């Protein structure tokens, strides 16, 4: 191989008349251009090569025969340019997040850990989203080691995610980098993001950047929808679940004016009209439901630094659960069966725009969204109705302080407006949150191997006063194989006491609360160590991470102190979460991706004056996933097994419970295992998938306490720790057509 290289060296430059081509190479780092030193620049098919200097500048001799300039740098996508004259070049390289990858034919790995981002982030791309059937954001994490998904209760079908063992409300949920799905959308919001609409998801743990707000105590989850200027022309997905679930999703992109003005239309409809009660307790395992959603988004890009995007969506979601005999249109009366009905209507709009100055050192961005949400619901005899109008706006100015971009600053302001009106137990509650805020973040990046980021923000809350949010991140590549990250930061969150916890109404005990709005505060500290090695020609990735969250104020759900009420009260004492996780990713044989992960959760809370384990939280989680594709990727096989640790079940102490014949199962749930599998067959324009969720058919026994007497004093459907639904087989079809 060396010989042929030398041969070329001898023959090629013979007739060459040299001229000098000049240029500058930048790396696109989070949409900012940073000059890249040390980049390899050579003519394709020759050995004439140079490297860029500290300011990213290079000079290379151009011989007559030289046409294709190859620009490559570890950690970035290699770029090839056709060069016909000597006009100075400006080249921007896009980060290639598989650091150090040597380009051979590679599998598109579904999830990977970034080595470049200063914040510990898992990126879930389209390939990973194909591994699980469908259908929405809540179901996209089944192959993910960091995010746990569970039902909040046994009757409403609401799903919760957990990050670091903490409820989803402690993670900042974003769509397209703008906070979303909070307030009234907290309980069902994860089902409002259809899986096939998404292009990718980013899960970052620990404190996030101050640019995104003062929230994100445990982490941040961002979902990106498909972009209207992408290659995709049309995509359709249909899904049939054996338990009666039907789904249809579609999206199409239209290039209105070349690639400058584009629009995307998205539709989603799902329906569950078959009644399922496999455990025979008289209650539906999942509510009957109907959801319809439409989104239209527009993008304008003049390819000279200005870009604008806007869109709006409409959603209706209707769920009916409870006893199987309860029918649509029935009134919530003691003489009727027990029913739970939730209707949601949501309108959303967003607008974001950005401009990058021609010198590439300054950029300005504006992000905003607005939503209007209405809920009408009843749980047995209790009605809960609410409406919310919310606005978020944020302006960010990014500036590199020096030419190579070693020092850069992001500053800006944001504004949150949230108007809430809710009614429970005939108590009307109104409130308005108005929060202007200022923020600044400094990034020091002396080279590719080190990043330090420090941010601070100050927010002026109309109800909670002024508060300051400091955050800090550090990343260091120790040699070729090891990346370390550390982070620390404070986070705040407005707990909407009732709307976030209204699933607790599926219990005979009424909710007791003092404030209908409450501010939670916590510190989060994290440390992560990622190692990359080449073992038998394939990359082995090892990750170890530890995160601690310390609550200063928190809203505690106390189901154990009072036999009459479920008490929602401020924390009085300590509350923390320690999360320790290890992952290993490797291809033991060609095209077989394997992930082994283990996480230990130590989540403790002071409930009723006593520090104890947070109830209904698994003490550990183990995960093994396999993904195999055949040589030409015509078949794909996926298998996932989750090992969920046991935990505590909250019980109100009564004297009879002291008896020795009460089994431990009454206070504790045992570890359980859930398996999923899927087969996908790809054709040129479409693919078909067949799979099963919860293959071993594991179900929590008696998820509804006193199911035979739902209006009686012992009814409770909120002590849920495991799957309520058993094995579910599904079949789906996807069709896609691309622009050439």
């Amino acid at each position, binding site marked *: 191989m060396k010989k042929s*290289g030398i041969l070329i060296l001898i023959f090629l430059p013979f007739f060459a008349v040299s001229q000098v081509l000049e240029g500058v190479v930048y790396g696109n780092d989070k949409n900012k251009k940073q000059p890249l030193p040390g980049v390899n620049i050579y003519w394709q098919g020759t050995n004439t090569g140079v*490297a860029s200097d500290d300011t990213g500048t290079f000079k290379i001799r151009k011989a007559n025969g030289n046409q294709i300039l*190859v620009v490559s740098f570890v950690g970035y996508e290699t770029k090839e340019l056709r060069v016909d004259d000597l006009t100075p070049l400006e080249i921007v390289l896009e980060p290639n997040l598989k650091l150090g990858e040597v380009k051979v034919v590679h599998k598109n790995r579904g999830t990977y850990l970034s080595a470049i981002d200063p914040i510990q982030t898992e990126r879930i791309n389209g390939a990973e989203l194909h591994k699980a059937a469908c259908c929405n954001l809540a179901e996209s994490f089944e192959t993910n080691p960091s995010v746990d998904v569970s039902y909040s209760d046994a009757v409403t079908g609401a799903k919760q995610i957990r990050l670091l063992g903490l409820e989803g409300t402690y993670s900042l949920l974003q769509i397209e980098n703008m906070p979303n799905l909070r307030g009234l959308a907290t309980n069902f919001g994860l089902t409002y993001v259809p899986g096939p609409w998404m292009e990718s998801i980013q899960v970052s743990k620990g404190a996030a950047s101050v640019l995104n707000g003062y929230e994100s105590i445990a982490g941040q989850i961002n979902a990106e929808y498909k972009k209207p200027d992408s290659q995709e022309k049309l995509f359709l997905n249909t899904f049939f679940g054996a338990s009666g679930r039907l789904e249809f999703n579609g999206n199409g992109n239209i290039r209105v004016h070349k690639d400058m003005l584009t629009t995307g239309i998205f539709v989603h409809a799902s329906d569950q009209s078959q009644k399922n009660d496999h455990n025979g307790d008289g209650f539906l395992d999942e509510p009957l439901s109907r959801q319809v959603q439409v989104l239209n988004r527009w993008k304008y890009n003049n390819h000279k630094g200005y870009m604008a995007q806007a869109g709006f969506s409409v959603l209706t979601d209707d769920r009916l659960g409870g006893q199987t005999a309860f029918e649509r249109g029935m009134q919530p009366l003691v003489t009727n069966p027990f029913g739970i009905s939730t209707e949601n209507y949501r309108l959303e709009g967003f607008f974001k725009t950005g401009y990058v100055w021609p010198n590439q050192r300054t950029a300005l961005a504006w992000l905003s969204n607005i939503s209007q949400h209405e809920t009408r619901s009843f749980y047995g005899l209790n009605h809960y109705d609410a409406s919310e109008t919310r606005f978020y706006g944020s302006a960010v100015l990014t500036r590199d302080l020096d030419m190579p971009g070693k020092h850069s600053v992001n500053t800006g302001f944001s504004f949150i407006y949230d108007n809430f009106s809710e009614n429970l137990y005939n108590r009307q509650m109104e409130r308005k949150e108005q929060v202007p805020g200022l923020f600044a973040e400094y990034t020091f990046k002396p080279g590719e191997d080190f990043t330090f980021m420090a941010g601070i923000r100050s927010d002026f809350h109309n109800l909670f006063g002024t508060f300051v949010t400091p955050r800090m991140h550090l990343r260091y590549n120790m040699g070729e194989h090891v990346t370390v990250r550390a982070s620390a930061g404070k986070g705040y969150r407005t707990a909407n006491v009732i709307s976030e916890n209204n699933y607790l109404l599926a219990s005979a005990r009424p909710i007791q609360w003092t404030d209908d709005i409450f501010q939670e505060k916590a510190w989060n500290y994290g440390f992560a160590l990622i190692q990359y090695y080449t073992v038998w020609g394939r990359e082995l990735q090892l990750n170890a991470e530890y995160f601690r969250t310390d609550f200063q104020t928190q809203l505690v759900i106390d189901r154990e102190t009072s036999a009459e009420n479920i008490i929602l009260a401020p924390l009085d004492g300590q509350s923390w979460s320690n999360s320790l996780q290890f992952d290993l990713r490797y291809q033991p044989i060609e095209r077989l991706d394997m992930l082994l992960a283990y996480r230990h959760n130590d989540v403790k809370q002071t409930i009723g004056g006593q520090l104890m384990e947070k109830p209904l939280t698994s003490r550990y989680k183990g995960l093994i996933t396999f993904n195999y594709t055949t040589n*030409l990727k015509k078949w794909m096989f996926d298998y996932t097994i989750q090992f969920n640790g046991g935990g505590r079940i909250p019980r109100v102490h009564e004297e009879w419970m002291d008896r020795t014949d009460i089994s431990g199962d009454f206070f504790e749930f045992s570890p359980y295992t859930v398996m999923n599998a899927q087969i996908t067959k790809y054709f040129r324009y479409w693919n078909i998938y067949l799979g099963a969720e919860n293959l071993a058919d594991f179900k929590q026994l008696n998820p509804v306490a006193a199911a035979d007497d739902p209006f009686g004093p012992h009814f409770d459907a909120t002590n849920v720790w495991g799957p309520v639904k058993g094995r579910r087989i599904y079949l789906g079809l996807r069709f896609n057509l691309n622009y050439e």
Partner: protein
Amino acid sequence: MKQLGIIFLILILGEFSNEISAQKKGRAVVCFQSDMDCADCEKNLNEYLRFEKGIKDLKVDHASNTIFIEYVEKKNDDKGFAAAIEKKGYKAEKISKEKYDELVAIAKDLHEHGQEVHQERD
């Protein structure tokens, strides 16, 4: 340790079965030189060609501008693949396997050379 042994065993078996499939009867190989030049073109062409009739193995590489195809003789022929490549708008000049190996080796050599330059600067 025992598990490591099992993984190793799977690894060996995996390699072995690949070896066998490469020698199957009734298979033919055809190589082309093309003019893709970009990584995206490589991806698009790869996506398209992998569903061609009879195809068993495929390597599309933009760095060396080459395409390697192994297929079942009875199900397709060189012309069929050339037509498919041209349909996507790329050149399909048939070359010998030796020439293909040579082009790939040169491209790979250059790539490694590039990596060395970077390491020296570190």
